[in-house]
């Protein structure tokens, strides 16, 4: 059972890691935030799996903290976006890959 749970944790981590390609590609910062959010949920799942697999108590409390503050990144994101609208909508022209494709929005 332990091996299965550890394997599942590695699988979930690897999967959401693939999602981090979105952080690289963008094109908009909202997409990057989405990838970070997915990593957040996947990280909580991997953490719970790891905690049960290795028998470390109190891991569910760490997961609880992460879930409690999971929305904070996005809250900061949208409040920051409201402050300077150009930062949130699209990247500055400096972004290499963002300029190549046109923005979907």
């Amino acid at each position: 059972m332990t091996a299965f749970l550890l394997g599942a944790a590695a699988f979930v981590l690897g999967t959401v890691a693939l999602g981090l390609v979105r952080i690289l590609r963008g094109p908009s910062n909202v997409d990057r935030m989405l990838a970070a959010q997915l990593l957040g949920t996947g990280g909580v799942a991997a953490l719970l799996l790891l905690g049960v697999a290795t028998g470390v108590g109190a891991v569910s409390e760490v997961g609880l903290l992460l879930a409690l503050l999971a929305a904070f990144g996005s809250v900061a994101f949208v409040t920051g976006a409201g402050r300077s609208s150009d930062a949130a909508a699209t990247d500055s022209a400096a972004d290499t890959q963002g300029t190549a494709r046109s923005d979907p929005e």
Partner: protein
Amino acid sequence: MSLALDLFTIVAVTLGAIFFLAGTVGLLRFPDTLTRLHALTKADNLGLGLVVLGLLPQTTAPLGWIGLIAVWLLALLSGATVGQLLAEAVRPPEWDQNRTPDALPNVPPNAPEASSHD
């Protein structure tokens, strides 16, 4: 009995992992930001939910159960809110054109209004 519970764990955790995979594929393959947001919520709600469900038989104390379920409920709450917030952030500006700050209470039907602002 223990075998059945283990089997239940394996099935539920595997299903949850598949939902994480689906969410990632959607995040990578869907064409625009709003559809990607939709993919994300599947991983948030079902992926984590199934993993939590699968882990329940492996934790003994009722306190552990409460903790695990609380994690999932909190993730549901923040996932739903984050979906709304990010969707508002990508809303095209032309949707907002006929809205002045003074007319803010008249929001489109897809945005729940928290008008009781004290």
